[in-house]
């Protein structure tokens, strides 16, 4: 399987994209709607005009038309051919290439087993559920043994549970086949779950490339920070394991209990929306609860963003607007805050280099 290299790719939606995707890697393009991620995918597929060079394995493929680029493409709306049953859909690419009937049948049977749809081969797409269609589309894209697999938000229209299940399966299949894959999504969790590396895109440019942990704990610029949900990131001064996969971490004069995976923790992070804030002591075990003082409150139509000072650190806290409409929530108010233990992420030393 090849590496993919993009050199100076530009067109109506993209500005000078340079990117190198490694062999067997599952690479995620992450960005908001309109950031150019799908256009970039279509550029690699050769479906869109572009300037610059796309290289597979260091060879330029700019002059090779889509049908000969050796790619598998999983479209956002899947595009199963409605006039063909599952078998014919999956075997389409093989029939186009004039494979022998017996070969096609063997290959299709292998694929339906791989994606777990042996019982559906005779059905028409109209009679399939969302998740089943997804599997058929994946099998169809894999049938031609593509060198590179391109996936454009394929799990968007599924319920979260099915989507998660399919993500895990995709990851398993991708690793088994060792196929270089580029996955487009706007969903941060999806990106974190799947990616070997992530590129965050905005307005046709790449903002940051890195492993999920890298991006999460050291956002390269303000856009990335905002995109990630502006997490509170805390440098750890001291880390003591306390058993039960937990560690006590000293940071900015407070000690926080955080999940511990057997390695020294370098940084921890918590989302503003995962911090609870109250004027009275919060009931429940006294873990990760601190006293602080509001420095500023910023109300929008749905949430109130507060900056809270605890010892010598400042933390941003986000509450639904309904729970802090009272006049009492203002600069200088003494509050109790509590970090949700489950929502604290830790970055170990070995992951940070």
């Amino acid at each position, binding site marked *: 399987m090849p590496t993919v290299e993009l050199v100076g790719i530009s067109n109506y939606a993209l500005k000078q994209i340079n990117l190198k995707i490694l062999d067997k890697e599952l690479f995620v393009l992450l960005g908001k709607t309109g950031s150019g991620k799908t256009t970039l995918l279509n550029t690699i*597929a050769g*479906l869109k005009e572009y300037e610059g060079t796309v290289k597979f394995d260091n060879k330029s493929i700019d002059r090779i*038309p*889509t*049908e*000969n680029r050796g*790619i*598998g*493409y999983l*479209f956002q*709306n899947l*595009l199963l*051919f*409605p*006039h063909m*049953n599952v078998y014919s859909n999956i075997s*389409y*690419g093989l029939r*186009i*290439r004039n494979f022998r009937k017996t070969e096609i049948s063997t290959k299709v049977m292998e694929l339906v087993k791989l994606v777990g749809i042996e019982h559906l081969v005779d059905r*028409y797409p*109209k*009679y399939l559920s969302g998740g089943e269609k997804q599997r058929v589309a994946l099998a*169809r*894209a894999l049938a*031609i043994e593509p060198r590179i697999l391109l996936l454009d938000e394929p799990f968007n229209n599924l319920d979260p549970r099915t989507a998660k299940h399919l993500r895990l399966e995709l990851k398993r299949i991708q690793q088994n086949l060792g196929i270089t894959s580029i996955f487009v999504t706007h969903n941060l969790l999806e990106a974190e779950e799947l990616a070997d590396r992530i590129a965050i895109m905005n307005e046709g440019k790449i903002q940051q490339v890195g492993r999920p942990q890298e991006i999460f704990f050291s956002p390269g610029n303000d856009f990335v920070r905002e995109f990630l949900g502006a997490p509170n990131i805390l440098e750890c001064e001291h880390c003591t394991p306390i058993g039960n996969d937990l560690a006590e971490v000293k940071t900015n004069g407070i000690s926080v209990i955080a999940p511990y995976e057997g390695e020294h923790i370098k940084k921890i992070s918590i989302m503003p929306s995962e911090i609870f804030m109250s004027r009275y002591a919060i009931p429940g075990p006294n873990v990760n609860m601190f006293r602080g003082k509001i420095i500023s409150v910023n109300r929008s139509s749905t949430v109130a963003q507060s900056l809270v000072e605890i010892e010598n650190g400042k933390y941003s806290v986000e509450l639904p607007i309904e729970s802090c409409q009272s006049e009492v929530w203002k600069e200088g108010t003494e509050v109790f805050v509590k970090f949700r233990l489950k929502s604290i992420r830790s970055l170990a030393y070995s992951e940070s280099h």
Partner: protein
Amino acid sequence: MINLTEKIIWVFPIIAFLFGWELISRIGIFPTYLFPPFSAVLLTLYFLTIEGVLLNNLASSLFRVIIGFTFGACSGILVGILMGINSKLNKTFSPIFSLLMPIPALGWVPLFMLWIGINELLPIALVFMCSFFPVLYNTITGIRSVETDYLEASRTLGASNMQILTTILLPLSFQNIITGLRLEAGMAWRVIIAAEMVAIPSGIGALMMRAESLLRVDVIMVCLIVLSIMCLISENIFVKLEERTKHWK
């Protein structure tokens, strides 16, 4: 039991209709020569059939419909495909076709009588005109209504332009094309009867005109029944083809 009733329930109105026809005619409100009973019409059908008159005329009409319709539909589909996939061709030719299409097929009769003369080619040409334009229009619409995303999907799976046409574009426009064919198959019969009435000395339409001059209402009714059945059969052939696409959408 309910299923069986549902399946044969359509028979009863027909029986009631025929019975009413027979009854009204037998009561004698109208003269029998203007309004013969159903039984007399059936008898005429029998005699016309064994004498060969009916079959001969039906054969000439059928021949004209088949030849004219086949040519009209095939050229309509062919030109439709070309105009459907090539937007330059479409832009160039659609204005002229739009001008010609509204002319009813029978509107061509006087012109064709002068150009072609009164021979076998005249009714065939008329059926051609009546099937060509609607089939052309439906084919273009069919091809243009295929989502272009499907074409990209097929391209990523390795299909060449020709393969995309034969495996994706045509099958997906099949439904539209067949609907056009179905409507026009019935229309071809209507046109051929009218043409035979005014211009051609043979065929079911001509038989009806001769029956009219001889005041044979029973023969006219036989012809109408035959015509109705032929229309139905022609359209049903395409209904059956249309049904094959029911799993698609």
